[in-house]
């Protein structure tokens, strides 16, 4: 295929590409070749992947094309995708960005991937902070990913490789995971759309657990329509995940273009103030004025306990980490450092296998759960969680959708926060209350500040993704931003 028709394909959204393939104007195989060529071209600059899988992508694409001839496929199945490296892919190395799983090839696929389709055209396993712990991908054992908008800056994290892949056109869309902003914050920093569904909307089976009560898989896409389509592909109840919700999956594209006339939109007071860069605040305010112009009823809303979200999160998430990461002990999979006795083998394997942030969180969680500290930390944090849920419940009795910045800042320089864990944690201050409450939330590019993308975060009540996506679609239309491939 000629160079110019490849670049034309690369300029399409995932939805547009899928429609073109459905109309037999181009094959899934050609789409896979185009994605592979783009990976070849830019991967040296952006480092979006721990493992690239060009051969697998081609084989699967050929199967998709064959199945199209003999019947049909789901619309999304022909679209090449990047998959975060915490999602299990059968027979394809899955490292979680960690040295402790440097050689791990899962024995089964994550349910969300199987929902998408057995022939999912995976172009690669996307880089991320180790076990999804971080906000910059600098905690990956496989080197940081780079922001396609400015290669000296971070793409955000933890799903930073998924975000940089989408922004750079290494596949038309990606899956990330969001425990405390890990889909939305990198989406914001890379100028793409990132959706964290309601907790339980997407099965976590085969997602290698970080904090089980908070983790959720989410779409990372070029626009809001792609986000709706990718959510459609992965959502649904799964008997293998006891926390997955047995709630019917609606048609996420049906109400998408319904507009915001009469929609009640509340701007969260506490998330617009201290620590938020002026350019970020102005972009969010400008988008809110646009929504008002499109017919939304705009007001201000308070989430009085939101300032306690981050400290509560940094008890609950590490506590769950200390438990979930206990399984990496050199016995069943991954790295083993030999030693004479089993206890020394555990200690040495975990010392060599885990990076700084994973060690820090294991320590923090173990400390918080240890004898004498449980009530002051873990029990108190779980009660804070209840107060945050009550704040949201109160807000949603008066507003359909809440608005804030996704990240208080635009993309920061690689190396600027890596030695200051607290400063890094603050990057997710607007995002974590959402995870504690289990509600859905989406980041939509609202415009540029200092030449870098700013994300606008929208939030809505449990299982109201159709409303959230409709508001996000309108946000995209009033914002001063259009997706273009970088670098």
């Amino acid at each position, binding site marked *: 295929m000629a160079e110019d028709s490849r670049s034309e394909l690369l300029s399409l959204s995932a939805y547009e590409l899928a429609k073109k393939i459905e109309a037999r104007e181009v094959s899934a195989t050609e789409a896979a070749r185009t994605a592979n060529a783009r990976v070849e071209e830019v991967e040296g600059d952006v480092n979006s992947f721990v493992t690239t899988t060009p051969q697998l992508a081609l084989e699967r694409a050929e199967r998709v094309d064959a199945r199209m001839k003999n019947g049909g496929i789901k619309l999304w199945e022909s679209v090449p995708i990047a998959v975060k490296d915490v999602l299990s892919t059968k027979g394809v190395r899955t490292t979680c960005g960690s040295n402790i799983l440097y050689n791990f090839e899962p024995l089964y696929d994550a349910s969300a991937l199987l929902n998408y389709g057995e022939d999912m055209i995976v172009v690669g396993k996307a880089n991320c902070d180790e076990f999804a712990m971080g906000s910059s991908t600098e905690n990956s054992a496989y080197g940081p990913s780079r922001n396609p908008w400015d290669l000296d800056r971070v793409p955000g994290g933890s799903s930073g490789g998924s975000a940089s892949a989408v922004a750079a056109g290494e596949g038309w869309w990606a899956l990330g995971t969001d425990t405390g902003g890990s889909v939305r914050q990198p989406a914001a920093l890379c100028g793409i759309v990132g959706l964290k569904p309601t907790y339980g909307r997407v099965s976590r089976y085969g997602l290698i657990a970080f904090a089980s009560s908070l983790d959720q898989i989410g779409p990372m896409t070029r626009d809001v329509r792609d986000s709706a389509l990718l959510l459609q592909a992965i959502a649904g109840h799964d008997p293998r995940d006891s926390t997955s919700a047995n709630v019917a999956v609606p048609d996420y594209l049906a109400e998408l273009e319904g507009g915001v006339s009469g929609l009640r939109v509340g701007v969260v007071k506490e998330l617009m103030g201290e620590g938020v860069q002026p350019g970020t605040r102005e972009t969010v305010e400008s988008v809110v004025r646009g929504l008002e112009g499109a017919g939304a009823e705009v007001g201000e809303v308070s989430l009085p306990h939101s300032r306690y979200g981050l400290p509560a999160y940094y008890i609950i998430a590490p506590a769950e980490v200390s438990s979930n990461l206990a399984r990496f002990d050199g016995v069943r999979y991954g790295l083993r450092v030999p030693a004479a006795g089993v*206890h020394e083998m555990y200690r040495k394997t*975990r010392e060599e296998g885990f990076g700084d942030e994973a060690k820090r969180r*294991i320590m923090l969680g*173990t400390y918080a759960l240890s004898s004498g500290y449980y009530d*002051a930390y873990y029990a108190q944090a*779980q009660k804070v969680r209840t107060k945050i849920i009550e704040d949201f419940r109160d807000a949603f009795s008066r507003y359909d959708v809440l608005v804030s910045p996704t990240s208080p800042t635009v993309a920061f320089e690689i190396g600027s926060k890596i030695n200051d864990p607290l400063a890094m944690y603050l990057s997710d201050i607007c995002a974590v209350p959402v995870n504690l409450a289990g509600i859905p939330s989406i980041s939509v590019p609202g415009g540029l500040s200092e030449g870098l993308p700013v994300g606008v975060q929208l939030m809505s009540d*449990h299982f109201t993704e159709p409303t959230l996506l409709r508001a996000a679609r309108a946000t995209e239309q009033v914002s001063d931003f259009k997706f273009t491939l970088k670098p």
Partner: protein
Amino acid sequence: MISEEEVRHVANLARLGLTDEEVEKMSGQLGDILDNIDQIGELNLEDVPPTANALNLTNVLRPDEPHAELSPETVLSTAPDAADDLFAVPRID
């Protein structure tokens, strides 16, 4: 600050080896993080129930029915060491 002795105690609970340098660094960093977290203690939440699951799910059950699972050979294929259809480990000390 968390004392270095306490850092070593917690690391032992977590079966996590740390170098002396890491112990020193961890003692300062964990202290800073916990100082920030301590603000949740300001809230009087005595009568507030805790939340473990945001959707308030409790005890999800399924019928206990046998079905095909991965074979022992398959499961052991990812293990660093195996013997007689079992995971092999160094001496239990």
